[in-house]
């Protein structure tokens, strides 16, 4: 491969994206007219792109979405402080102006960051659908937990604590509260 060909091949991706300057664009187009090897490379790249765009769109599973969101949010929470630590705080002792700018930038970022990820509909970082799904899962988790507790109580100690353990917990708690209220009074 000629050195000019390797330079052109390096530009093919940008050429397809339309990111080249007018001069570079013209240069690549002219080269492709005269070089069969680069033209083949260009066609192959173009076909590959077309095959991607013709693929059906798939929705991301809920769990994966949450994992990505969780990882992204946790990175966002650490990005601002580490950025300021590297660029700002170390310079504070010697450069008050830079420190002031850094502080303003921090305030600006902190004000902008949460809002940029908020869903306007729910005023929170998640969409209404995500919240409803999470709520169902959490609710089911709680129900299953107490169902398991109640069932195991029934099976293990059948009848000793009555029908459902939460009632026993509540009874015990009420006694504790009565005792503490009595003690205070």
């Amino acid at each position, binding site marked *: 491969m000629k050195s000019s060909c390797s330079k052109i091949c390096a530009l093919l991706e940008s050429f397809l994206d339309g990111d080249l300057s007018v001069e570079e664009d013209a240069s690549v187009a002219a080269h492709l007219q005269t070089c069969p090897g680069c033209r083949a490379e260009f066609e192959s790249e173009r076909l590959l792109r077309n095959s991607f765009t013709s693929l059906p769109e798939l929705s991301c599973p809920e769990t994966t979405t949450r994992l990505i969101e969780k990882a992204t949010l946790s990175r966002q929470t650490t990005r601002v402080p580490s950025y300021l630590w590297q660029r700002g705080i170390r310079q504070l002792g010697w450069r008050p102006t830079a420190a002031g700018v850094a502080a303003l930038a921090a305030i600006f970022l902190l004000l902008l960051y949460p809002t940029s990820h908020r869903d306007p509909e729910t005023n929170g970082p998640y969409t209404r659908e995500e919240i409803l799904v999470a709520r169902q899962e959490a609710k*089911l988790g709680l129900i299953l937990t107490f169902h398991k507790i109640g069932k*195991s109580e029934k099976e*293990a100690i059948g009848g000793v604590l009555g029908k459902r353990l939460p009632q026993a917990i509540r009874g015990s708690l009420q006694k504790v509260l009565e005792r503490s209220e009595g003690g205070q009074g």
Partner: protein
Amino acid sequence: MKILPVIIVLILLFSSSDEIYGQEVDVTKLPGYVDLERIEIPTEAEDITDINVGSSLLKMAADSKENGDSKLSALLSQIYAVRVKSFEIDDETTATLRPHIEQIQQELESEKWERIVYVKSGDEMVTVSVKHDNEKIAGLMFIAFEPGSEVVLANIVGDFDLAALTGLVLGFSDGELEEILEDLDSD
């Protein structure tokens, strides 16, 4: 000394950033947390229940005050994690498990958990312990150990009102809970 106010502002900003971003809580560091990961569910065990509702899901579930069921929303915002491990045990597993159960009981005792329910019938045992943190409850630990039959370990971590929690769960019983439980039992 102009630098001092700037540093103070930055410190305040950093110290409050967790709340601003709603960063995930590290439940393992909370007083109501009991490590149940030490309990390994045998692969051959039957009737396994393994529930792990983490803080990120609960935070998401509790988000927004406008999504109806404000009672549930308020409760979920007070719970950081729910962990349940339950499975059938044979005599061999019972022997392996017993030291772990005793260790958990000792830890609860040494960490000043209050045992509000204690039932012992032969070798069977059920305990419910709560960890107080000021006026709230920071954790609830349920243990049902029936040698040769089943073990249930449940840990709820949070900063919650136990009466509200039990009230809410009892509140499920009108219709919704019964329906879900019937579905579960029929599985």
